[in-house]
């Protein structure tokens, strides 16, 4: 009896914990191959309709970079039933918000509405996929807008060329070597037919996932999803065959220049495994260990104690085919970039040879617990996590189980992964320098 009570109590406890965390969802496929995920949460009268397409900056024909991002603009131009320029009006005049974003791996569109406009959201996303208007006027207008976006975010922004410089030096053959926004010459040279062909190839229901999350009634939502998306024809399967990079065995040294900066930066960047791999989760933890919070190794040493750096940061940029692990620092005063690099190396060498302390290990776990709770705090966040987990990581339930992976990572693994991927001969050393007037 006592034993029973005990297990009941622990069940209860577990139940409370799980309730606070568990994200319930339901999945199904339409006949045309569109994958649909529903998540019901009626606590606030808000609903999100979002579609993630398996197409990103890495998907392009020769000399036609930047197409995926360009589409993220083009597909707001209008559809057979939504007049040109009306898209945003339809959303805002119904009290909604919408946006889209593109990475090298995928493109994501969404609307958030008060929940009485669920049907509107589904209609709009189905219109976008079924029959958007792709014409010369739209292409010409968005071509200029994209150029302004490039000037704003890259050419006129301090350190705006960071990622581009890392990509082009770290990748030799894989399309990750190109900029997500693409080369403007490529976009200028692209014909309307090429844009239409790109749409036909990638914007097919069998290459996408629809997520509806928030204040919904599941049965009614299912019917509406079928009504609006069911008639869209399936397309050919998207087949990719990207060339594989050969491992880096000798340090790549490179320089990049930026017109908008006074203080240089040094970056050590490593090509690391896909974010699907367990090792990538380990690298997430390593980046937190190095620079997550004021007590982290790099911040404490470089910024605080030795006063060598204005900023020091490690990031694990998770991607589908290869991730990028980068450590960057901005020197303070006359500190040389080489000395910053040496200091970083010292810490990485420690990681590769010694186990991190039990206390630091527990700290990392606590940080990831906190991150996990916060990652599912809005229906918009939940929708994007569900879509990403399905489309890119192949397991929707990671939204509930990803934390288990972090919990299970050992100190030994941290050491081993650092050893396997973070040695100086496996990396790019990039000096990111202020551009002088005569350069």
């Amino acid at each position: 009896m006592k034993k029973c009570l005990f297990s009941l109590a622990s069940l209860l406890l577990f139940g409370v914990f799980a309730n606070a965390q568990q994200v319930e969802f339901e999945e199904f496929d339409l006949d045309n191959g569109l994958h649909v995920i529903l998540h019901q949460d009626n606590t606030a009268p808000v609903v999100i309709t979002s579609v993630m397409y398996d197409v990103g900056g890495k998907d392009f024909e020769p000399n036609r970079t930047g197409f995926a991002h360009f589409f993220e603009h083009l597909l707001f131009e209008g559809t057979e039933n939504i007049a040109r320029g009306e898209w945003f009006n339809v959303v805002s005049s119904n009290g909604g918000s919408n946006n889209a974003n593109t990475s090298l791996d995928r493109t994501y569109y969404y609307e958030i509405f008060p929940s009485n406009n669920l049907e509107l959201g589904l209609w709009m996303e189905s219109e976008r996929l079924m029959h958007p208007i792709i014409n010369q006027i739209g292409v010409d207008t968005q071509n200029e807008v994209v150029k302004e976006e490039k000037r704003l975010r890259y050419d006129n922004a301090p350190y705006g060329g960071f990622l581009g410089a890392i990509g082009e030096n770290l990748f030799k053959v894989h399309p990750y070597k190109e900029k997500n926004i693409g080369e403007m010459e490529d976009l200028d040279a692209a014909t309307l037919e090429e844009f239409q062909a790109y749409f036909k190839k990638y914007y097919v229901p069998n290459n996408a996932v629809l997520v509806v999350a928030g204040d919904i009634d599941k049965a009614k939502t299912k019917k509406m999803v079928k009504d609006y998306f069911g008639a869209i024809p399936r397309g050919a399967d998207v087949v990719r065959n990207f060339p594989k990079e050969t491992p880096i065995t000798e340090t790549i040294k490179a320089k990049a220049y930026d017109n908008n900066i006074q203080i240089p930066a040094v970056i050590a960047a490593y090509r690391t495994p896909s974010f699907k791999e367990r090792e990538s989760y380990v690298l997430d933890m390593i980046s937190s260990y190095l620079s997550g919070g004021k007590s982290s190794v790099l911040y404490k040493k470089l910024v605080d104690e030795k006063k060598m750096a204005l900023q020091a940061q490690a990031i694990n940029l998770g991607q589908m085919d290869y991730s990028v692990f980068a450590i960057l620092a901005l020197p303070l005063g006359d500190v040389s970039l080489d000395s910053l690099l040496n200091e970083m190396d010292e810490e990485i060498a420690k990681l590769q040879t010694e186990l991190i302390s039990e206390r630091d290990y527990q700290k990392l776990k606590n940080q990831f617990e906190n991150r996990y709770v916060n990652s599912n705090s809005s229906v918009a966040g939940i929708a994007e996590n569900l879509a990403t987990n399905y489309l890119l990581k192949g397991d929707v339930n990671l939204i509930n189980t990803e934390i288990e992976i972090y919990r299970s990572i050992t100190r030994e693994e941290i050491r081993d992964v650092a050893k396997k991927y973070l040695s100086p001969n496996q990396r790019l050393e990039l000096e990111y320098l202020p551009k002088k007037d005569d350069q």
Partner: protein
Amino acid sequence: MKTYISAFLMLFLMAFSVHAQIDRSKQPQPGPAPKIDLKSPQEFTLKNGMKVLVVENHKLPRVSFSLTIDNKPETEGTKAGVSSLVGGMMGNGTTSISKEKFNEEIDFLGARLNFSSSGAYASALSQYADRILELMADATMHPLLVEDEFNKERDRLIEGLKSQEKSVEAVAGRVGNALSYGVKHPYGEFTTIETVNNIKFEDISAFYEESFNPNNAYLVVVGDVNFKKIKSQIEKRFGNWKKAVDVQSTVPNAIPNVQYTQINFVDMPNAVQSNILLTNNVNLKMNDPDYHAVLIANKILGGGFSSYLNMNLREKHAYTYGARSGVDADKYVGRFTASTAVRNMVTDSAVVQTLKEVNRIKSEPVSAEDLRNAKAKYVGDFVLALESPQTVARYALNIKLNNLPSDFYETFLQKINAVTAEDVTRVANTYFKPENARIVVVGKGSEVLENLEKTGIPILYFDAFANPVEKPKFSKPIPDGVTASTVIDAYFNAVGGKEKAKAVKSIWTTANVTIEDAPFSPIGEMKTMIPNKTSLEMSIEGMGVIMKQKFNGTTGYTEQQGVKRDLTEEQINDQKASHTIFPELYFEPSTLSLESMISINGSDAYKIKVSENGKDSFRYYDAKSGYLVRVEKTTEVQGQTFTTVEDFGNYSPVKDMMYPYSISVSTGPQVVKMNVTNHRVNEGVTEADFN
């Protein structure tokens, strides 16, 4: 019977498998509006005056604490930056916990704790609520402020300022604030390396003592807490924070708006985009009766993607990635702004279009649709914001900070929905003041100033720290050996040679004409004959000739919509003295001077001044191709001067000579573009054409 059932079943099934049950050509209509449930936080006040607001929300096991100290804004003068140093130094240990231990513990809890010069924010999993609260309180009341940390923070701030020196956006923000409010106002003053170097360690503790007191403090708690329990914890942690003597200070007035529309230009040679910011101060508080109407007016003008500004500058003209406007309602001084970032080449046009849209909302009633849409967006945003438990807390805090009526948010949507089109026009005229606005433009002078001057808006010049300066000079060095006459020679080489030019007696040009914002596109017929006869006729299909302009060598007239006007004596004299076909053939060397080399649409061009008959005009020749690319003339009509700029491009051959096929003529904001379809040389033109 059986067949009936299966037929019925079939029908039933079909209803669910056939997709054509919806009419997708019609936009779905919203269902019944969801109920809005606006909860109020629970509140209490500590004896020392600190007010506490608690929003319990148990959805996720987390909690946040947000401390706001509502001090009056103060200027820091020669020591500007002291507040940000204090913000940076705090939250790094307490008098009883070392910095290392303190920061390590925050990180160990997986928590966050940040301070600013007027508050702090902490968040953590709810199991650590009491500990993070304790650390926050200790760091607020007993911060570890030591000289060594001061030096570090100061060096970091200076480096941070350096890192922003070339940022167009940072400069635009700084200069915009400084010019709008004045540098003697807390909202207008800014931190420089110099002011940071003036700060001494003693200033830090002085600022802390003066600013961090419970008198005007608000602590907002949101999350997985129990009110009773957290109340007693807060009383325990913050209860002995000592109340200070109330300091009476007054906030200085912002400088008045300017008397006339002006461009305030800052030259940044590294800019690839110009930052444009139209700004005027306003007297608007959240509890003013106009507040809701101003929100709606701003929403329509520049408060979203579908706004006037964005639809014009981004969607119609593709000048920018985005254009927005904003109105700050503020207890002390508010401000209206309209801003965008555009590529260098269209800076002037973007300024003109921005003014046009601001003036439009002042002069034209907004459409019922725009009004309805703006309201719907506010309703929607209000509903969407309710998803976050922070919203209720923010609303309650706003009521206190801005002395709002307690039902401000309950009646918010009702008041938004009551705004009329007349209200919008009225408040637009009260608060959007382009006639008293500065248009702060930060950009690359050598590429944008020429065109900005043509807008006719007076330009004043400032450096990156808002100090007035002389107009910068942008001329590039003229290469050795280049003179006015070599430029003219190069021009003739490019178009086909002097001898061939001399043989041209008449030109008959047909062009498709587009006039900015005009609903029609006329056809233009232009004829000229040596030495100076000209004829221009514009016609529209179905309407015939709508405009004529003629000069036959001795007299001339203009005719528009049936009204004929003879040329004045001065105009006749001007026409007589000019040559209309290859005037370069007739220029006296003594009338020409090579002024400078500037950039036109990204290419270098030589600027030649032509002084004839007591008047100066300017002709620009491309440095590479030799072609004439621009002619600039100033004329005076009834006391007003107009600068007319003709741009030429797209040169192509006719009878072995090169002629421009794209011509654009702009006078002030008006732009007429001509796409030439045909140049006929020495054919089809007779004397009669000019009468």
